[in-house]
């Protein structure tokens, strides 16, 4: 089930809205050094039963985006504008109380480091029970039984014993599973996983990714997975959004992004990674330069100082910001680049792909 033509890409234009619909999100933090534009005009959508992978490096704005969806920015520290629609309800305009009620029940988040995300003074069971009882009017006994059931569901051995253990008594992989149990305890419709496996060993990572996939199928949730690891999104994501400097650079299905990428930044990411499944290359192909300052982002296209093809835009990349628009293949593949689509496809085919 790929993005169909009836449901046009969630950037401008009429369309039926997705379950989670983010439109022109801007999150700016006023600081002493200046206004940090962490997210600067981002739009995407996720449906139930589908997984969106948001890929980007540090400073791309991916974590700030997910925290905005969950309403976790302290009021007053961030200027948030745009729309975040969860099943039609606008989260930005909703009161703090309404958002709090939705958190846990309709949307839940898994964080990168479970040790710091869970409270060290309460048992894992207590933390799951607390979440469950806030959203459901049940007795402690029933809530505890549910907690044990959730721990079992995520593959924690001896859950009736482990439910009374503290987070520090779990191993890394187990803690992450416990956090997933906590997030899913109220059967949320949207699950956001922010770098859920970065802190884990690769064999444990594989187990956790399998778990997320299985649980999504079972609960039919919409899943947003945020990561810098292209391997992880290839495993899990149906659709992929590539972010850079707080904006979307490319958006499409996983097949489109991996097999027919059209943005120079995406090409750069694919070229930077050594791959187990290809022949060993002589040299990696890094992207020159460093990620930009978010206070003084480069004018025009934020990627242009690092782009090897900037000259092809006739100076436009330095002055005008490219919008994330359809690439012309008519299948929901959107790219934010001033180069003509035909030229981009030719460069990919003739210059980039053979080098990978």
């Amino acid at each position, binding site marked *: 089930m790929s993005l169909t033509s009836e449901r046009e890409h969630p950037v401008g234009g009429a369309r039926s809205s997705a379950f989670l619909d983010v439109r022109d999100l801007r999150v700016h933090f006023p600081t002493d050094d200046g206004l940090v534009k962490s997210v600067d005009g981002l739009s995407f959508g996720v449906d139930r039963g589908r997984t969106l992978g948001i890929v980007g490096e540090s400073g791309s704005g991916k974590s700030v985006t997910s925290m905005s969806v969950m309403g976790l920015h302290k009021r007053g520290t961030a200027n948030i504008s745009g729309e975040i629609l969860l099943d039609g309800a606008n989260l930005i305009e909703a009161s703090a109380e309404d958002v709090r009620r939705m958190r846990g029940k309709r949307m839940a988040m898994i964080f990168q480091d479970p040790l710091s995300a869970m409270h060290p003074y309460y048992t894992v069971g207590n933390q799951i029970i607390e979440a469950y009882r806030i959203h459901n009017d049940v007795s402690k006994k029933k809530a505890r039984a549910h907690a044990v059931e959730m721990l079992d569901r995520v593959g924690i051995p001896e859950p009736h014993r482990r439910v009374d253990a503290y987070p520090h008594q779990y191993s890394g992989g187990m803690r992450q599973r416990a956090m997933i149990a906590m997030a899913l305890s109220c059967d949320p419709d949207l699950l956001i996983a922010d770098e859920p496996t970065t802190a884990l060993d*690769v064999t444990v990572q594989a187990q956790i990714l399998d778990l997320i996939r299985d649980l999504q199928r079972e609960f039919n949730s919409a899943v947003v997975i945020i990561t810098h690891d292209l391997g992880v999104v290839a495993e899990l994501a149906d659709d992929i959004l590539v972010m850079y400097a707080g904006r979307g650079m490319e958006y499409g299905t996983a097949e489109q992004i991996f097999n027919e990428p059209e943005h120079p930044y995406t090409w750069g990411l694919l070229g930077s*990674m050594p791959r187990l499944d290809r022949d060993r290359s002589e040299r990696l192909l890094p992207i020159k330069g460093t990620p930009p300052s978010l206070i003084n982002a480069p004018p025009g296209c934020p990627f242009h100082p690092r782009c090897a093809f900037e000259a092809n835009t006739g100076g436009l990349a330095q002055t005008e910001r490219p919008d994330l628009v359809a690439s012309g293949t008519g299948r929901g593949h959107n790219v934010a680049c001033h180069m003509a689509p035909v030229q981009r496809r030719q460069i990919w085919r003739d210059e980039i792909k053979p080098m990978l």
Partner: protein
Amino acid sequence: MTVTETGGGATGQDAADLLTVTGLVKHFPIRQGLLQRQVAAVQAVDGIDLTVKRGETLALVGESGCGKSTTGRLLTRLEEPTSGSIVFEGRDISHLRPGQMRPLRRDVQIIFQDPYSSLNPRHTVGKIVSAPYRLQGITPEGGVKRAVQALLETVGLNPEHYNRYPHEFSGGQRQRIGIARTLALKPKLIILDEPVSALDVSIQAQVVNLLEDLQEELNLTYVFIAHDLSVVRHVSNRVAVMYLGKIVEIADQQSLYTRPMHPYTVALMSAVPVPDTKRRTERERIRLQGDVPSPINPPPACRFHTRCWKAQHVCTTEEPPLYELEPGHRVACHFPENAPDQRTPDGPLA
């Protein structure tokens, strides 16, 4: 009971062997009570043998708790071994006192994982990179400042940033500062402890290319410690896979990646997510159950038997030695993949 690896000569060292490690053990004691009696020990490294040849890159791969970082620290004598020996250029450095080690520190250097905590935030870049000269009492030709600026240029930094502080640089740039510092005394052997794990993907590629160029230009020998199998494949000549303080497999890079023999190595490679959507369904996955056991109380005999899908009873009673099953390819397993069984199967574990 492991076979000592020798370069090519029948006895002791080859001229090409820079470093030879035999039976290296490091246990960290756990003490309890008023009298601080030792009640247990973290068996971080539990008997490993290694040889590092001049000019090559030997990778140490494994997950958390396998002992690879501790091994790296032992090789630079940041820790003292509990037992076993480390021989560098023919000299046994296992138990040298700090004063005796000091001149050797010119030859053996280390690059750390975290570019944020490995640089003193109160020192300028110039002071950081010139510290080795100061500590060793060496004045390079042309003066310290010129030497430092040349080093900064070598690693791709602007020599004019001599007076800047670490916080003014990005993670990738800080790692380059660490590399510049390491190169100051023209070392022979560099231990790299996860040098690119903390960096973004595009910066990782820059730093990996830099490390490769430097190795070629300056004839360096690397021991590259990492958990990222893709990066390891790209940089290494030989790879040693560690699990719970032991080397379970050691082979040429190509041999290891095309024909891994130890079940743990096979599972490790199978677990690495590859950026290819087609492989989502096609790939044969091996899923290991559970987590790595604690190094305080490792499983008896073969340490991997608790998670191994091929484990038989003999795996719980007899520790498999590191045998050379193919030229240049050693495995510690009774029932390796891609190779004949070393023992008769005597019943799988329940």
